[in-house]
């Protein structure tokens, strides 16, 4: 059956290509979101139906809106990942109070735009670092140089060289944390290499 159905029309070809584009991990992730949305984790008769329906809906979404795969991919390292989340939450907490203190300090606030070069080649890590840097108060991404792998960060209240250097170190520490928590083996190897060659140190 299978070998005697070459794609006869363009339509069939398109359908086949689209079916090939379904990525199982992404579909499972969408099912998880669906379950969280409708409280599917409580044990009750509807839970199984919700699971199946959620999976079908996510497959339908991927058929209608096919997206390119996440190329380098990621993998969650449990211990490092949890440590990463705790660290980011703590950093967010501390930085919020710093910005609050900044608001109530009289006088004009001087800031800086710093450039931080990334040490890994993965686009996903670049995006993650940019998101986390923006989410933490006190630093906003102004510009991303994708080919140069460079982030331009606006840092609130960085008016001395010392503070500029510390902000740069913070972003680098975040990148290292993210790569160790979410990066693939290749990413981590790249980071270690950069660290070993001393290029990454500020």
């Amino acid at each position, binding site marked *: 059956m299978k070998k005697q159905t070459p794609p006869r029309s363009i339509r069939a070809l398109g359908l086949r290509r689209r079916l090939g584009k379904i990525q199982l991990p992404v579909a499972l992730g969408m099912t998880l979101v669906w379950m969280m949305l409708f409280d599917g984790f409580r044990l009750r008769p509807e839970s199984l139906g919700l699971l199946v329906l959620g999976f079908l809906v996510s497959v339908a979404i991927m058929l209608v809106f096919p997206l390119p795969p996440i190329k380098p991919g990621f993998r969650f390292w449990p211990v490092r990942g949890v440590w990463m989340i705790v660290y980011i939450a703590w950093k967010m907490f501390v930085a919020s109070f710093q910005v609050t203190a900044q608001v109530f300090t009289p006088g004009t606030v001087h800031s800086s735009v710093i450039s931080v070069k990334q040490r890994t080649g993965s686009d996903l890590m670049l995006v993650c670092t940019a998101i986390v840097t923006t989410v933490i108060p006190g630093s906003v991404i102004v510009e991303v*140089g994708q*080919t140069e792998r460079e982030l331009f960060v606006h840092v609130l209240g960085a008016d001395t060289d010392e503070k500029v250097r510390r902000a740069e170190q913070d972003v680098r520490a975040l990148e290292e944390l993210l790569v160790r928590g979410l990066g693939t083996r290749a990413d981590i190897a790249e980071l270690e290499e950069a660290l070993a060659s001393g290029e990454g140190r500020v």
Partner: protein
Amino acid sequence: MTVLWIVIAVALAVAALLGTARLFMGPSILDRALSVDVLIASAMTGLGAYAAFHQDPTLMPTLMVLALLGFTSSVSISKFVARRPEEYAPPRGTTDETGTGSQQNAPGKEGS
């Protein structure tokens, strides 16, 4: 405890008022977009506080919609500004392009 609830309500109301003040004052359109963002954030906080006070989970979908769509206003306004910067502010000497494209494809955009 009632006092704390009142403090929460007053703080949110003052925050929304200050946001509205910036909305009126804001020298450029991006400042106004930013103050709309803050207004949305305070609306979400207010809805959360309301739901918590009444212990009423029916407002959660509203919170979710705001969380998903709250950023679209500032993005669309920024895109609008990026297309025609000269009307709202004098272009800075060093900026070559309008800022629509990313750095890499900026030179390719000269034809448009």
